[in-house]
């Protein structure tokens, strides 16, 4: 009985620790005054109204969205075959490759950003292609953030899959491609959706690496927020954060609805 109470208390404290900062950000977004102070002098929606009028935020959002969608799509199309090879293949260095693909998750974003920056500079000098600060370069960097998620999550779904189900399909007359399309793909779909979601969120929220890869006039949402914070600390930032939370929350709910995980697992 005491144990259960203690467990609940611990769970409550942990939950509060996670949710409290978010709660304050949301609260702050509705403060009327420009300099955040307690208690609030009143409540207002004006900071939310200001966001759509701010080009930096709107363009930042659109760029982040564009980059995250592209990076997720590319990450998935690379991650799925990679995961299949890593799970099904028998080759020397399989473990090493698996770990290498997770590396971008472990290397600090700043380090990754500098490394890519230097790489882009050197590549541009060597080839003359305008890579530095280009959209392609930015997306390529973000693909790197998405890949660990796609590989990890799809590997997990493949490992949990009964191999004989694929053999059954082949026995019934399905060639390899049909087997993949009709049997393997539906089985790993929940893993792919989760991978897409995590890859998207990781890319959308990335700041440190993007700082090195954006070009003039090309600013992602997290960078726009950072730049705004250098000059002002009014609740606009809180309002932008709330909108971002709503956006990602909606994306999560939507994917959860589209993929009826219960039918597959």
């Amino acid at each position: 009985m005491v144990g259960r109470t203690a467990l609940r208390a611990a769970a409550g404290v942990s939950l509060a620790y996670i949710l409290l900062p978010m709660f304050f950000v949301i609260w702050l977004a509705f403060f009327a005054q420009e300099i955040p102070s307690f208690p609030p002098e009143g409540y207002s929606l004006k900071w939310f109204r200001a966001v759509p009028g701010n080009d930096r935020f709107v363009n930042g959002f659109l760029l982040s969205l564009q980059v995250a969608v592209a990076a997720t799509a590319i990450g998935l199309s690379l991650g799925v075959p990679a995961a299949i090879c890593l799970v099904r293949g028998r080759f020397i260095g399989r473990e090493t490759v698996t770990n290498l693909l997770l590396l971008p998750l472990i290397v600090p974003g700043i380090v990754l950003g500098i490394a890519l920056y230097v790489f882009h500079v050197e590549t541009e000098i060597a080839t003359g292609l305008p890579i530095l600060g280009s959209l392609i370069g930015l997306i390529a960097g973000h693909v790197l953030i998405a890949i660990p998620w796609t590989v990890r999550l799809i590997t997990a779904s493949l490992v949990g899959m009964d191999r004989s189900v694929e053999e059954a399909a082949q026995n019934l007359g399905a060639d390899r491609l049909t087997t993949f399309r009709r049997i393997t793909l539906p089985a790993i779909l929940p893993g792919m959706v989760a991978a897409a979601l995590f890859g998207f969120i990781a890319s959308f929220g990335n700041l440190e690496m993007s700082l090195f890869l954006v070009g003039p006039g090309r600013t992602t949402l997290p960078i726009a927020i950072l730049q705004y914070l250098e000059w002002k600390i009014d609740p606009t930032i809180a309002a932008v954060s709330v909108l971002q939370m709503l956006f990602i929350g909606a994306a999560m709910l939507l994917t959860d609805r589209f993929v009826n995980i219960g039918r597959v697992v």
Partner: protein
Amino acid sequence: MALLQLTGITKSYGDFKAVDDVSLDIADGEFLVLLGPSGCGKTTTLRIVAGFVEPSSGHVRLGERDITTLPPWMRNAGLVFQSYALFPHMTVSENIAFGLEMRKMPKAQMAPKIAEALRLVRLDHLADRLPRQLSGGQQQRVALARALVFRPDVLLLDEPLSNLDAKLRQDVRVEIRELQRQLGLTTVMVTHDQEEALTMADRLVVMSEGRIRQIGSQQDLYERPAEKFVADFVGRSTFIDGRMDGPGRFVSAGGLVVACEASGTGSASLALRPERLALINGAAPPIDNRFPGAVEFISYLGSQVDLHVRLSPKERVIVQIQNRPEQPLPVIGEQVHIGWSKSTGRVFPS
């Protein structure tokens, strides 16, 4: 004409031969069972027929075709997996339809075939369920229907009953066998369960260590085992080690002189079936072999009783007797006489 023919099939993994020079002819409509302990190569042999394992050497023919190098999806063999391997995201009828779909059958023609397959396995009422909503026995029948619906040239069963509980297994055995007869399906089944093999097969193949040990009917294997392994694996045998000491004369390590029908010389093993040995009381007519011994252990099995009888310091045999009310059972330590005819013991050189 043999419908399915394996010639000199060998599958090596490095130095290890999973299947070693296996040749088999399976006739049209025959129910053949590959029987053996785990790791004997029976499942690998089945997977070679299904096309999931490519043999290192040898040929597989199905009807007029050499299918040795054909991929699984071009073989037209129906396989029922040990785990059933139903498609979890498809309903029962979608599962069954899959093979027909792959054969590009129009939807309108598919419907009656699916209905018929469902009726054959008595699952008409569950057509729209998902596999996870079915019991193990029902899933097994879906797997069977799925493998039958496209009229395969050969039906392959990989330990199909091992995941069912004992009671259900008995029923499904009969069901599968009747269905197989009714459809005249050439069938190869793999099992390690000798009772299952004996009750279902037209012909059995006993395998161990990748090799065929004996091919034959139930009687062949039981009455005339070709080697010690078969005598041990099919039915029960007590083995007595010794040597052949001239035609029809076996001398055990413990010094028993046993009359038998074998010839030859050299060290050998004598196999005795427990139910072929008899308990003899004083007034019985003379018998080829008769030895006194002490009962050391008794297993009471209900309709039968196993007596473990010490014949010499080095030899102990099991005698299975019928449990009849008019015959009092011996007790542990009691001196008894046991006997058997010379045709009972089988001698294998060792």
